[in-house]
Each structure stands twice: as C-alpha cells, then as structure tokens.
C-alpha cells in the first residue's frame, strides 16, 4: 500500500466515522428496543469498534513500509543535548 493510498484510506475512514457518529444516521438507531431502552448506545459502541478495527487492520499491516524519517541536522543536535 503506497503512501498516497494510505492517506486516502485514512481520510475516507475518518469521513465514514464522522458520518456514523452524527445525525441523521444516529437518529435511525435512536429507537426503543423491546424492553424500552434505546439502541443508540449499543449502535455507537459497535460502529466505534468497527472503525477502530478497520484502522488497526490498515495501520498494522506488515507490508506497509515505514515512511522516510527526517534525517540530518536534528539528530546530531539532539545528541548534543543527551548526556
């Protein structure tokens, strides 16, 4: 998965999460269950967990190569401050 694709996926996932966590979708689930309590919290937890699961799945794939790390000046400089 290249960086551009990963970026696009993360943005899409954040958009999806925003959609799932806001009206009008939450209104659909704000219905009383058989015993009278609303389904809303259960829905929110399930949607939340699903979003986290997807993020974990994408971000923890072993095939993702780490991005280039900044190199150069600061490394040398940081060392100076470390004993």
């Amino acid at each position, binding site marked *: 998965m290249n960086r551009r694709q990963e970026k696009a996926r993360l943005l899409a996932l954040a958009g999806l999460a925003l959609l799932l966590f806001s009206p009008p979708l939450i209104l659909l689930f704000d219905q009383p269950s058989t015993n009278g309590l609303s389904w809303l*919290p259960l829905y929110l937890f399930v949607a939340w967990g699903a979003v986290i699961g997807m993020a*974990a799945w994408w971000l923890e794939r072993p095939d993702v190569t780490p991005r280039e790390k900044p190199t150069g000046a600061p490394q040398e400089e940081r060392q100076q401050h470390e004993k």
Partner: protein
Amino acid sequence: MRSDPIMLSVAFGYLALLFVIAAWADRRAEQGRSLIGSPTVYALSIAVYCTAWTFYGSVGRAAVYGPSFLLIYLGPTLAMLVGPLLIRKMVRIARAQRITSIADFISARYGKSDGLGALVALIALLGITPYIALQLKAITLSHAILTQYPAFPTDILADAGFWNDKSFWVALVLAVFIILFGTRHLDASERHEGMVAAIAFESLVKLVAFLAVGLVTVFVLYNGPGDLFARAAAHPALAQALSLERVPGGALGWVGMLVLATLAFLTLPRQFQVLVVENVDEDHIRRASWLFPLYLLVINIFVIPVALAGVLLGDASLSPDSFVLTLPLAAGFDGLPLLVFIGGLSAATGMMIVETIALSTMVSNHLIMPLLLRSSWIHLGSRLSGGQGELTGWLLGIRRVAIVLILLLGYLYHALIGDAYSLVTIGLVSFAAAAQFAPAMLIGMYWRGATRAGAFSALILGILVWAYTLLIPGFAQSGWLDMALLDDGFAGIDWLRPYALFGLEGWDIYTHSLFWSLLANVGALVGVSLFSRQSRLEQTQAALFTEAMHPELMYRTPLWHGQTTLGELHKLLSRYLGTPTALRILDGDDRQGGDTSAAHSASPALIARAERALAGALGNASARVLINSVVRGEALDLNAVLSILDTTSQALEYNRRLEQKSRELTQISEALQAANERLRELDRLKDEFVAMVSHELRTPLTSIRAFAEILRDSDNLPEDKRHHFLEVVVHESQRLSRLIEEILDLARLESGRLTLHPERLDLADLARRSADAVQRVQEERGVTLKVDTPSSPAEVIGDPDRLEQVIINLLDNASKFAADDQGRVRLALSRHKQHWRLSVEDNGPGIGEAERERVFEKFHQLERQDGGDAPARGRPRGSGLGLPISRGIVAHLGGRLWVEDGPTLGGACLIMELPQAPAEDTATSPFNSD
C-alpha cells in the same frame, strides 16, 4: 479500611510510587535504554486525556444526559484517525523548530511573534486553570465520600482550613513531582521520560480501576448485563435514559459537542504536550491512531451500566458524579472503593502533572521571558554578567515558581468557587476555550496566507465571544453577577443575551458558544489575513509550517547573514543554557577548522544552531530576540527558504513537464520509426510488384510480337500454320488483357476504390452456377468436380459477380493443383455458427504449413513437388494474382479466406467464410422498426 490514616498512606504511597517509576524511567533514559520508546507507551500517555472528569464525570453525565458523554471520546477518535497525517505534520514541525508548547507553535507559525505567544499563554491560563481546579475538587470530593459515606459530604471546604483539605497537600506533592521530573533540563523541547512513564502507568491504573467497578457492578451486583438492563428498563425514571432526547440540544447539540471534543483534543495544552512535544518517534503515531481510541472505548464500556445501576440504587448513591464510588460502598465492599479512589487520583494527578508542565513552560517562555528581555534585561544582564550560566538557574527558577503558582491558582479556584460548578460544566468550558486555538493552529498549518494580524484578531475575538457566552454566564449562575444578564441581556439589550446571542435560541449553551466563537474566530482569521500583509519572517515561517512534509525543507531554518563572533555567541549561550551546553553546541561545528578563538566570526549555520538551542529552552520568539541582540548587520536571510521552496517546487514542476514531453517525444519517434519501416516495406513491395508486373506482361507480349513478326516477314506460310500463329497471338492477347484486368482489380482493391454492389443472395445457388460454368473446363483437364451444397438457401450479403469470380478462381486453382491422374475437386457449403463456409478442396499434394499465407501474396506461384515450375500437364499457369484478389474481395464483404488441409481429399482446402445475412425483415426494410 476507610479510616483516614490508611487512606492517606494509600494515597501518598501511590504518589510515592509515581516518583519511583519516574526516577527509574529517567535512570533508564540516561543509560540509553529508554522505557518510553514504544508506540504503546505513547498511546497510553495520550490517555492523559481521560481525567477525573472521565473517571467520575462520565458516569454522572451518562446518568443525566444519556449517551452524550460518548461524544467527548468519539471526537478524539476522529482526530486520531487522521493522526498519521495531521499529528505527524505537527510533530515534524515541532521537531524542526524545537517547539515547546502550543503557544510556541502558534507564535512560531506567525513569524515568531512574542505577542501571539503571550496571548495564547494567557488564554490557556484563563481557560485551563478551572480544569486543574476540577481535578482537585474531584480528589477532595472522592476523599470526603470515602470517609463520610453514607453521609452526604457537604461544606467540605467551608468548615475546615485548607491545611485539612487533602487536595491541598496533593497539589503540593504534585508540585514537587513536577519540579523534579518536569524541569530537570532547561530544554523544554527535551522529552520528560520519567514523567511520560509515570503518566502511562497512571493510564493503566485508572483503566483497571474503572473496569473493576464496571465488572463488579454488572456481574456481582447484578446477574450480567441482561439483568441490569431489564431492571433499568422497568424503572420509570430510566425509560428514556439512553435516547437522544436526553442529550442537551438534541441532534444539533450532538454535532456541536462532537466538533468541540475533536478540536479540544488537538489543542488542549496537555494533549499538545503528550501528542507532539513528548513524541519520541513519528512512527508511534500509527499504532496510537487505533490503540488510543481503543483505550477510550474500553474505559467507557461500563459507563452506562454503572450509571444505570447508580440511578437504580436511589438515594444511597448520592450525586451522579460519585456513582463510581458509592456503588461499591453501598454494596459493602472494602477494598474496591479504595481502588476506585486510587483510579480517580491517578486520573486527576496525571492531568495535573502534564497540564502544569505545559502551562508553566508557556508562562515562563511567553509571559515572563519576553517581559524580562524587554524591560529589565539590561539591568539583569549587567548585574549578572560576572559569572557564566547564572541565568540557567534563573530560568529554571522561573519555571518552578510558575509550576507552584499554577497549582496554587488551581487550588484557589477550587477552594473559592469550585462548588458553584458541576464537574462537567467546568470541563466543557475549558474545552471551548482550548478550541479557540484550533483555527490559528490548523488553518495555519495548511494555508500559507494566514497572517499574524489574522491570528491575533481571531484569538481575541474568539476568546471574547467564549467569555461572553460561557464564562460570564457561568459567573452569573454562581451568583456573582446579576442573573438579569442572562434573562435580559447586557444593558437590557435583548439580542445580547449570552445564551441566545442575536436571538439564536433553543441551542444548548456549548454548541451555541462554539458556533458564535468559532464563527468570529475563523471569520477574523480568514478575513483579516486576506487584507493584511506578512512580514518576510512570517512568510518564511508560514512556508516552513505548511510545507513541513516537503523533504527539501526539513530542518531548514533561515540563516543569519549578520556578523557575530564565537566569543559573543558563547557568552550568550552559556548565560542561558550553562557553559557545558554552550560548549557542546559550539564544538559541534567542525567546519570552523579548530579555530575557536573568541574573535573568530561565527558561521551562519552555527548561529542557526544556537538559535534552535535557545528556542528549545526559551521558545522561538525569545530566542530570536536574543540572537538578534548579538548579531550585527543584515539580520536574517529570509529569501533563502522561500526561494528554496519556490525553486524546488518550480524545478519539480519543470521536471514533471520535461518528463512528460520526453515521453511524448519517445512515443512520437517510435511511431515515426514504425511508419518509416512500413513505408520502406511498401516501397520494396511496390518495386517487386512493378518488376513482377513487367515480367508477367512481357512474357505474353514477347510471344505476340514474335508471332506477329513471323506473320509479317514470311508471306509464304502455309495457311494452317498462319492460322495457328494467329490463334497464339489472339490467345496471348486475351491472356494479356486478363492480366491487365486483374492488375487493375488489384490496384482498385488496394487503394480502396473497388466498388462492390452488395445484395442479398443465395450462396448455394451461386456456388452451383459457378460450378456449372467451370464444369466443362474441368472435364477437359481430366478433373472430376463434386458439389455438396445444402438444399436450403444460404443467404449472405455480397456482390454476385465478384463472388462468382472468387468461386471460379478457387475452382480453377483447385483443378490446376489436383492430382495428375484422377484429379478430384470438391466444393462444399456448410453453416458454421453465424457464417457460411464455402470450401474448395483438391486431392493434390497440398500446401505446406509455411506456404499457406504466402499463396495470398501477389504473383506468388506455387512450386510443384516434382520441381517443375508449371502446374500439371495440360493446365495453364496462373497469373499469381487470383488468390490475392479473391481475398481482397472477400475481406471487403466482411469475410475471410484461408488455407487448410483438405478434410476428405487430402490436398489443399481453400475456405471462404462469409457472415450470414441478417433476418429478412430487418435487412430489406430498415424502416419497419415501429
């Protein structure tokens, strides 16, 4: 178990444990075996987001306002999902610029402005101090409940001096902790490893404590979640407990709170500290982007059960904010309430530690330092100029005093006005204050055009609207101001009512305040930026911030062009950072070639490094002022960075275009080459063709001429001989004209000028007629012709004359190559899918695999296997044009012509395939579609 001495020893024993952990982590860091170099620790340290407000307040909020408590955690989830993009950029900027706090970040973005830094520090102080008070209040309250239960803890502060208030002592112990582990180095951009380790540990403690309460509530006090929810549903007060109806402001309030939590998560000073300043490795953000939301999910999973159980408990559960404690207390547990107390304590102290470090850095670097540098700097400098490194102690002292003062301020707030607010209110008011930083920070990171004037007006307007719509009404509700302000508006002006500004009514107060303050904030940032100009330094910083992910610009800071000496630089650095640090910074510059005499002038790179080192300790704005004080002449080379940025982006663009051009050129030249090849080939073919045509034409012409000459020169030829010669001349002339006819056909075919007259025809009938036409000739050659055509019509679209020409040609060819004796030729017509196939085979030697395509070349003559050039005896030689012409005609009619092995006779088999004519009605009358 709940006696005061035990409680106190547990509480302060827990704090002592924090000291041990922090000290151990610092020791490990010094040994180079860092404890915090893991993404999991990073994610846990971000969980400092969950304060006592989460620990006690979430349940309270869930009990009163239903599922809206979740928004405080869904917002950060959204922010973390884009963390690998957004927070990574913030971390990279912070590392390049040695950013120490969010005030430093905003000040550096807008041209290292000390005014902006001070403004942000002030707002943070104003907005966050109540939040610290909130933590102290939670500690006091939980302690009181624990010791006095089941009595309701009232007037906990009024009837006792502050020395009896445990939270005062907690604040003091924390001050010591923060001073020890938060100000060990002067360099604030240096990570506080001990502190981070302690925070991560605290995050685990509060998680375990909360889960313990949740599990006990659901599985011990009740028989699992089903039982609890069934009983809750039966309770009349809880009928709507979980629905959106309970959420203040309904759907709109829901969205407002979600936005508020998202922004505040990124801009709260303590979150900026752990997310950005304390980040060890950019790649840790990846893991944290899902692990931290997971932490939030887990710590919230029992909030609703605990809230429901608390309400079911009735009066014994006291106030909703204390359900977490009172549930296990009411059930008679002994150890569990203590664990809960420790969990709450860890949540509160974690927040206070990080928040205080962040605030003290801001206060010392952005409020006190600029004042010192401006007003009494000269006195200070002269008074202390005798020694070296004396200011280091001063600076650390300032920061330490700031820490104590901030904690005391928090305590005072808590002691004086803390009772007026509920936990949740204080927290959300603080959130709304921190959210005012979001536009200046986030827009500034992506829009180069945002100016300092814009950021200034944005922050001031935003915080004023915040104060008018949230802070002041809160004071009024606490009874310090006339409530008439809320009902009638400022000075009795109706549309200035703080909770219904400009008549916007019916919203919950936070969404209302967030809407107006962010409207003013973003509006001012964009509007003023569009009509103000950036200084050169601002332009540079704006470029460095917005293009932080640009590899060329990484760690590029503007270089000082002015002159200064090593001696002066050394004096400055050692005064502020101490002599050892100063020497390390100066020694790092090897390019000076060992010449370290004080009079030697410092290189621009060295000055830049000195500035960065100062920025790490004092903030960007002060560092710039200090360097400016020792550098003479033309100060900063600001064009350098901008020109790098412009040239690199231009060069990239040029490169891209050049590449595209060269790709196009390559393509064109390849196409040209191919066309050239094709032309050469055509030229060669044409030459060959001309040569062949001339050759073919010359043969009959030669014999005509020879016989004509004989007839002219020999008058006394016998009549029969003369007649024979004339026959030959006529025959050869016919052959010649046939040849010319064929060449003309071929030319027309190849130039596309051959006109065909396609019509619907019966191919079977046509085949029979053609066979009849050649029957006699075939018999003369001793060849038997067999015709197999279906009785039903085989309808195709074709030009009958031309098709007949093709079939005759095929039959003629076959008979020429049939076996010498008992030659046989078979013509068959069969249907194949949507096509008709007409095959003509002979019993001759056949055509080899390699020759099969070549027979369709012009003037190609098949060689007989016996080596002779001519066909079998008594059969005329062909022109070699028949098959190419036939194939051309068939191709024009949408069919194919090819050679196969004869299936029945064993010789060659030429197959002509033509598409079947479409059904009668559509073909004949295209207009009957209606």
